[in-house]
Every structure is written in C-alpha cells, then in structure tokens.
C-alpha cells in the first residue's frame, strides 16, 4: 500500500498523533500473506454450545447458545489472522476455546502436532507456554492486589522458566520491551493509565515467549490515540519474537494494518475469510460489505466508485435459535428463498479467499441466479433437484490449490 492511501486513514480514525503506520514502520514492508506458509494453528469445525438451563431445583437443559458453530481457519507461523464481527458473534468464545478457557463442544485445534481440543487440563499445562492471551479490558485483566512485578513474574514462576532469583531481572527486561519503566515493578496497577496497563498485560503474555498470541480486542478499550501506539507495540513484538497472532476486533479498521489475513464472523460462523486484498478490495459477502462501508478507515474508491454507507436493519438474531439456512438472511438485502432453505457452504472462490453466500459477488454486481446451486444439487429456490448430485466440498481449514471460479461456475486450478 502507498503512503497516500494511509494518510486519510489516520485522519479518519480520529486525532491520532501516531497513525497505525508510523514513520518507523514504513521502512519495513507491510506484512504479506503467503498461503503456503506453514500453519501453526489449524482449527477445523470448532463448535461451542453453551447449555441454557431452566431455573428451579432440577436444572434441565432447555436449549443451547450456539456461540461458535463450526469455524475452520489456520493461523500461519509469525503471521496474523484478524477475526472480525459484531458484538456477540462468538469471537471471544473462539479465542477462549483456543486458550482452553472453555472446553470445545466439537472440532479440532491442531497446534504443533497436538489437538488442543482434546488435551486434558493437565496435558494442556505445558502447551500454555506456547499459547498466550491478551485481554480486552486493561482495568480488569490485572489483579489490583498484585504489584506489576508479581503480575509479570507469575507465568515465569508457575512454569519455572527461570530460577527464582532471576525472575525480577527478567520482569524488568520485559517491562522495558513493552516500553515501561523497568523500575516500576513494585507499583500497583491502579497507578497506571489504560495504555500502560495494556502494556503490562502484553509483558505478561510475552513472559513465556509464546508462539501464538490470542489478542481479544486488545485496543478497543483504549483511547484512539493510544490504540495506535499499542498496535505498533504489538507489531514490534510480533516481528522481534516471530509470534503468530489471532487478532480479534469488532471493526475492520484496526486489523487492517496488522493482519495479512482476515476472517469475518457472523453468529458463530465464518462468512468470509481471505488475504487482506481479497477481503478489503473484493469483499464478496454482503455482511463484509456492510462492515466495510461502516468502517471510516477503509478507502472509499476501491469498490466501484463512491460507496453508500450500508445500514444493516435490525439486531443480530439470538444464537439460541439462529435463522435457518443462511444466518445473515434476516438482515440481508439480497436474501431469497434459497437463503432460508440451504445453508451456504464456505466456498473457496480465489487463491486465498473463501466466502459463504449463495449470491457471492462484489458489491452491486449481484448475479441473477444463486452461484451455489450446481454444487449443492438444488434449484434456484433451494429445493432439491433430482437431476443433479451435490458435490463434495473440501473441508481444508487452509486454502486448496483448486477453487470454484464464480464466473465460469467451475473448479479451476492455480
């Protein structure tokens, strides 16, 4: 991307004294997406259903919150995957499943040859060194009764990373890495600002030198001016320690400068995933297009001239009782019969681009007929078509070398 494209971004994001692309980062090439890079985390069909219990003495399960309902993605070594979606769509739950704060209902999470989904809590302990988390709320993520030294030193002590005597020295180093005064180790969190606290949280997450960091909206609780600093810090540590990120955010602006790959979630499912250019410049899902139009940061001219802001009607439906077929259909302006009857598969439509929509297309280029009928063996209304048989679709969490070309409606090879 060029300088001129970045400039309006920072002005739109507010009076940020330091943009996401500060001077020192412009020399470094923006992170590129390499679909052949080795995946460090490979998530397949991950599900988390929270039981809904009746009240009263005998507490029966009367339903399930389908917080995460079959998501698949890969996070590549030293790269970053951005996970974006509205509130309540299951982003945090996905992050907490990967760090095993929740036990998954189904699915697998392969990390360095081990399936994090089925490890017992005891077997998970050594893996915790490799997978760490940064939390959203800097005011609740640090124990108010512990000093900074204790907070950052706890992971070192628990995992016996360094002998007890060296913990303090290591803590000071870590504080220095995240740009804090190392002599402040004996202070309490309430003496720090939100941005500084978030830096303490980052230092704590870095203490174990993880390979994968789940960052759950690490900057959304911060001032816009501070957000850029913290994002830049994250990028620095990513490059310095070669850490892979799962970066959760609720809008596309923040992840844009951080993640070479973006996944968009809606009601527990990934609706679109792809490299940055595909998602930002060639979004094929109506929900992504709506998010993009609401994001002030994203350049306006990219998708066919000036874009109107798309206003989504209504609220996100309840994940206890999600809509049949496509979950987005209650708010989608393109919805037709087939959308209620058939669930659109997450279909690879480009080298590194997948989308789940019967009418997948760039904005204002909606095809007259659903693009998925041939694959699902249904007619245009979504009813089963006796004449055609459904195609078995790939379940690869990464990208295949063969994909479905929307124009020719056939599979093409790279």
């Amino acid at each position, binding site marked *: 991307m060029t300088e001129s494209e970045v400039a309006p971004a920072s002005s739109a994001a507010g009076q940020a004294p330091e943009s996401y692309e500060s001077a020192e980062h412009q020399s470094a090439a923006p992170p590129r997406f390499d679909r052949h890079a080795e995946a460090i985390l490979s998530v397949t069909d991950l599900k988390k259903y929270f039981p809904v219990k009746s009240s009263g003495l005998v507490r029966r399960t009367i339903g399930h919150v389908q917080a995460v309902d079959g998501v698949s993605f890969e996070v590549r070594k030293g790269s970053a995957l951005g996970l974006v979606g509205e509130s309540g769509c299951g982003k945090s739950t996905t992050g907490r499943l990967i760090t095993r704060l929740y036990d998954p209902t189904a699915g697998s999470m392969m990390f360095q040859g081990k399936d994090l989904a089925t490890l017992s809590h005891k077997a998970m302990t050594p893996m915790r060194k490799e997978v760490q988390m940064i939390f959203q709320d800097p005011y609740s993520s640090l*124990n108010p009764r512990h000093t900074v030294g204790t907070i950052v030193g706890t992971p070192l002590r*628990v*995992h016996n990373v360094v002998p007890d005597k060296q913990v303090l020295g290591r803590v000071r180093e870590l504080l220095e890495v995240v740009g804090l005064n190392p002599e402040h180790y004996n202070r309490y969190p309430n003496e720090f600002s939100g941005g500084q606290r978030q830096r303490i949280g980052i230092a704590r997450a870095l203490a174990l030198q993880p390979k994968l960091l789940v960052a759950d909206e690490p900057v959304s609780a911060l001032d816009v001016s501070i957000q850029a600093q913290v994002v830049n810090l994250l990028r620095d540590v990513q490059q310095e320690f070669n850490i892979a990120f799962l970066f959760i955010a609720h809008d596309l602006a923040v992840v844009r400068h951080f993640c070479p790959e973006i996944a968009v979630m809606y009601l527990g499912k990934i609706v679109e995933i792809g490299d940055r250019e595909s998602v930002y410049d060639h979004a094929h899902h109506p929900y992504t297009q709506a998010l993009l139009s609401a994001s002030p940061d994203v350049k306006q001219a990219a998708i066919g001239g000036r874009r109107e802001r798309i206003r989504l009607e209504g609220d996100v439906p309840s994940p206890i009782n999600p809509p049949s077929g496509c979950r987005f259909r209650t708010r989608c302006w393109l919805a037709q019969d087939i959308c209620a009857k058939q669930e659109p598969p997450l279909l690879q439509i480009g080298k590194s681009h997948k989308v789940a929509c019967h009418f997948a297309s760039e904005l204002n280029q909606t095809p007259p007929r659903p693009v998925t009928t041939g694959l699902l063996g249904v007619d245009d209304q979504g009813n089963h078509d006796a004449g055609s048989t459904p195609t078995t679709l790939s379940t690869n969490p990464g990208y295949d070398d063969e994909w479905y070309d929307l124009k020719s409606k056939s599979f093409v090879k790279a």
Partner: protein
Amino acid sequence: MALTPLEMAAPDVTQLPDQEKEAEIAGRSPLQIALARLRSDKIAMVCSAIVLIFVLIAIFAPLIAKLFGVEVRAGDPSSDTDIFNFPVIGPPDHGFTWKAPLGLAPNTGDDNLAEWLYGARTSLGIATVSTAVSTLIGITIGLVAGFSRGWLDRVISFIIDTFLALPLLLIALALAPIITLRFADQPTTLKYAQVIALTSVLIFFGWMQLARLIRGEVLSLREREFVQAARVMGVPTRLILFKELLPNMMAPIIVSISLGLPFFVTAEAGFSYLGIGIVGVPSWGQTVNKAVEYFDTYPLYLYAPVVGIFLLVVALNLLGDAIRDAFDPKTRR
C-alpha cells in the same frame, strides 16, 4: 573550592520532595490505604487502645495476679466467709483492702480480681480461637463453593442455609448436660471439655455468614479477566484461589473478623451466664450469673465483670465499624 551553604543545599531541596513522592506512590496497596484511614480515625485509635489493654491483661493475667498478690480459685469458705457466707475482708461489709482489691466472692471466698483477670483471658481466648477457626472454615468453604460451580456449589449452599436455620441456643442447651454427664466423674477433663465444647459450638455456628460472603465475592471475581489470565498462564486452581482471589477479599474478611470478635465475647458470656457455658474455668459470664442475686447487698461483685464485658464489646464493635468504613471506598471522609 568553597561552596556556600546555599549552593550545596539547593539540589537537595529540589530532590527531596520528588523522592518522597516516588516512595509514596510506590507501595500504596488498597490495604495500606485503609490502614492509613484507620490511623486518622480517633475513635478507632481509642478503641484499639482499649482492646490492646484487654489483650495484655488476658496474656499477662497470671503475672498481674501475682503483682496484686491474689490467686484464682484460692478461696476457703470456712476461713474466708462469715456465717452469712459473706467475705470476712474487703467489701461489702469491710473497707477496701489491698489483699483483695475487688473483694472476695460470697460463699466460696474466691478472689474477685483474680477471677476477673482470668475471666478476661477465657473470654478473649475463646473469642479469638472461635473467630480464627470459623474464619478459616468460612473462607475455605466459601472459596470452594464459589469456584466449583455446579452440584458441589449447590450442596454447600444448601448446607450453609441449613446451618443458618439451626437454633444456636437450643443446640447449646442440649449439648451442655450431655457434656457434663459424660465427664461428670473427671472434674479436670470436664473443665476442658466444657471449654472445647463451647468453642466448638461457637465455631459451628460462626462460619456461615463469612462463607456466604466469600462465595458471592468469588462468583463476581472469577469472571474478571485477571482470573482468566491466571488460568491461561496455567496457574493451578489452588493458587488462583489463594493467591489471586483471596487478596481481593481482605476487606470483607477483616470486617467479618472485627464483627465476629465482639459477637463471640458476648456469646461466651451469655452462655456462661445461662449456665450452659463453662463452669470449671473463671469466666465473666459465670461471675455475672453468681453475682446477680447479691446485687442489692454486694453490687461491686456484679459491676466488675459487667464493666469488663461492656468495655470490651463496645470497643470491639466501634473498632469493627471503623474498620468497615476504612475499607469501604464509598465512605471517603
């Protein structure tokens, strides 16, 4: 080269306040803030002084008794009391004497001061042990209940509710004769059995409030992100409970202790007064029980233990209130 004093002093003056500020900002934990507030509370300071005096009396009871030349349980009814069973020296019939500053007890001729000093010891001893043990039980059960959502939590909550519904007085009434009968032939064992039984009953009924309080605190704290962070780091559950959660519950625990102490002092005196507490060991409640019928003729006999109980309980209660205020951020003064 000669420096004028002014030149030398200058850097110091600018440096000092800075350093002081640093030192003050560093180590001000919420606990320290509360203590600082407590220190500036005059009532709290007077009350802690009173409590401290009682604690010293309790600890050094034998020493003080020796100082006054009095002994506990040393009365001899035949030589120390007259034909009306009233003491032959000191009040009420004779003047003040250093031999028995608070007089002797009617009937037995035991020295009142010695009984009073040792009574303070019994009272504070039982109250302290009961508070300590019931606090420990309350914390442990509350932590376990709060952190183990599901059936274990529901079982523990049910037990807490059941215990809260049990009538303390009735149980104590029922227990007293059983203990007395069981150890009737062994007077020395009976003495200790009574103390242990009373302490146990008090503990038995003293832990539920705190357990409930702690459980509620855990329920709200466990959703905080720092607990999640500890779990992501792989901190064992035991350490999460005691190192991450417990320090955040110091305020309710300290408040509970400061309110529990006066309750137990009152309860011990009350039970002993009713005759279902302890008999073999000196106790204020027991003295009150014996002294009530002599109030018309020998008021000092009753006043001594009553003043002791009154002062101690009022001081402890006021101190407890002050501590609660000091820990409550909403009552900034």
